[in-house]
């Protein structure tokens, strides 16, 4: 009886130590939280491939630690996109796992708002390959209380390797003017990302004398926009700027613009820089008509280490990487660099090490630094159009 009880107690202790212990001291886990189900799947596949490539190139080892990678999904099939519940659960899971030292994510700025305060209190380093809402990091560029409300611990744990929208909105307006457009109509999808960037575009357009004929929010649940486009057409724009994404009906807007006989260009931000946009709009409709800005150079324009990355990616996966792949790769490289610099398995040390990264050249994006807010110093963007059903590079933006 007594022996049996002891054995049982020992078993409980053993199981308990597995569940609540310090994990394996030689293993460091990196997790990513991205929408892996639904319409963003194509982009996140390519990001995950990029992360995996970065880790594999290091032989899944760094500074004496074995690196394990876990690919979490913050979307559900029912919603077709990220949900707050799922993102929140992913953050909790990462915080409770003592081996997790780096959290790569999120894809959607709205999702980052959910997980940032949690991960901040846990002191866990976050690296985002795709968030562009300025308020996540920049004081005074977002809503009231941003970004302080994401930093309850007072320390900064969030970094991103893409330029934020305060740059993209401005650069887009400048580009529109440079292309010779004088009259623009602005639409947005009334979401954090879309409206944010459209407002920035609007402000910049006023500044540089690009005439804004009107600015309206759309109902992204609506199925067609012919009445809206009829109204837009009557104002006589040569360009429509849409602050929104493929998921908030960018494709349908292009179609209805053509359906009412409005022959204008259609400019949209990086939320439309994916093949799904061309698929939903119809390749012929966006040919030479869509103008899509993207926070970096398209894969085929990368040079040096970037070109090597593209070549390796093609060799490994048998196709061209989509726009965000290189940012996934960069996130992986930053994670490894932070662990190397910290040289110990400690969340706070790794967090501090990442923010100290300056003049980083180990990735594929060239030389850049993190500023005091955790933003990249990169400001280079590209302007693209569509030719033959594929994105075609047009111009480098925002360099001067």
């Amino acid at each position: 009886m007594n022996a049996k009880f002891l054995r049982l107690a020992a078993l409980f202790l053993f199981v308990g130590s597995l569940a609540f212990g310090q994990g394996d001291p030689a293993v460091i886990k990196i997790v990513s939280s991205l929408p892996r189900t639904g319409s963003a799947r194509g982009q996140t596949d390519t990001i995950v491939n990029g992360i995996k490539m970065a880790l594999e190139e290091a032989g899944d080892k760094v500074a004496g630690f074995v690196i394990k990678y876990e690919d979490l999904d913050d979307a559900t099939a029912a919603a077709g996109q990220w949900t707050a519940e799922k993102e929140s659960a992913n953050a909790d899971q990462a915080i409770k796992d003592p081996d997790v030292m780096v959290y790569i994510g999120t894809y959607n700025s709205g999702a980052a708002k959910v997980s940032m305060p949690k991960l901040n209190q846990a002191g866990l380093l976050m690296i985002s390959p795709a968030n562009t809402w300025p308020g996540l990091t920049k004081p005074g560029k977002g809503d009231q209380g941003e970004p302080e409300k994401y930093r309850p611990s007072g320390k900064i744990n969030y970094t991103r390797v893409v330029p934020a929208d305060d740059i993209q909105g401005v650069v887009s307006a400048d580009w529109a003017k440079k292309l010779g457009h004088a009259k623009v109509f602005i639409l947005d999808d009334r979401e954090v990302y879309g409206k944010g960037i459209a407002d920035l575009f609007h402000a910049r357009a006023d500044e540089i004398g690009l005439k804004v004929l009107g600015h309206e929010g759309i109902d992204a649940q609506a199925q067609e926009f012919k009445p809206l486009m009829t109204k837009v057409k009557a104002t006589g724009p040569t360009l429509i700027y849409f602050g929104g994404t493929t998921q908030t009906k960018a494709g349908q807007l292009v179609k209805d613009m053509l359906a009412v006989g409005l022959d204008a260009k259609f400019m949209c931000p990086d939320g439309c820089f994916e093949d799904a946009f061309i698929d939903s709009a119809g390749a012929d409709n966006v040919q030479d008509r869509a103008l899509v800005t993207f926070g970096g150079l398209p894969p085929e324009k990368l040079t040096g280490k970037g070109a090597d990355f593209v070549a390796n990616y093609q060799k490994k996966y048998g196709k061209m990487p989509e726009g965000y792949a290189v940012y996934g790769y960069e996130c992986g490289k930053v994670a490894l660099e932070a662990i190397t610099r910290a040289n110990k398995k400690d969340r706070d040390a790794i967090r501090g090490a990442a923010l100290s990264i300056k003049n980083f050249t180990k990735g594929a994006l060239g030389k850049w630094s993190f500023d005091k807010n955790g933003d990249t110093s990169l400001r280079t963007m590209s302007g693209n159009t569509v030719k033959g059903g594929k994105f075609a590079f047009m111009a480098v933006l925002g360099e001067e």
Partner: protein
Amino acid sequence: MIFLQQLINGLTTGTLFALIAIGYTMVYGIIELINFAHGDLFMLGAFLALTLVSAMGLENAGPGAAAAGIVLTFVICMIFCAGLNFAQDRIVYRPLRGAPKLTPLVSAIGVSFVFMGIGQIWKGVADINFPDVLPNKNLLGTESLRFTVKDLLVILVTVPLMAALTVFVRFTKLGKAMRATAQNPIASRLMGIDVDRVIGWTFAIGGLLAGAASVIYGLTINTVSFQMGYQNGLYAFTAAVLGGIGNLPGAMLGGIVIGLVRSLGSQYVGEQWTSALVFGILILLLVFRPSGLLGARTREKV
């Protein structure tokens, strides 16, 4: 001029809503069931149309071949939706005929989810481009007012269909049986009407119109997705209620009113308020005319 243009926009989308609304209103009229799966039936019809149009390569076909292909697509999709709606009644609702009203209603929501799931597996979750088969050519001489081939198609298909339906319900034997069943199923049965057969036909006709609407939708709006049934179904159902649920001309009128409210609202109030406007008008109307625009005033049985 812009007012006229918005009228055309509103009328074309409105008749499309009307076509779907008829399916809701007919089924409600006869068995007092709000068939929530109707919008998703419409979605599956559009997916089938997309499959057919792509398979036949209509996008690059000549005008003659394209016209023949479109007619064929209409026929197949209408039969498909009619059959599916009939089967749905036979398998799901008929065994529940004697059950309390809430049971078939909840089943309808279930069927709606099943259809949506099928759509999701069939074509995925992203919006899909429906090939542009019809030319986007303006048929009017002036550039300031547009009435395109697509707008013409909507009118050419919906108006005869609605006229045919009205004639059918009013003058044929089966139509008479439908009206009788709607009025009093038990008395109809006593008079020798095969009520279950009549209900089956009602579902089939509702499906037929949804099938036609789905092809028109694909050809004129040019985007399909597995969620399209929900939004369009919601508007169509609203149209049915607005016109007086159970009332055929009411559903047609309701659809057109909603189309016009949407287009004129977008022009004169603001695009983001169009949905709020539609439902605001619905609420106002129901306060003052609870039975809808053309609904008969039914006396509560005490």
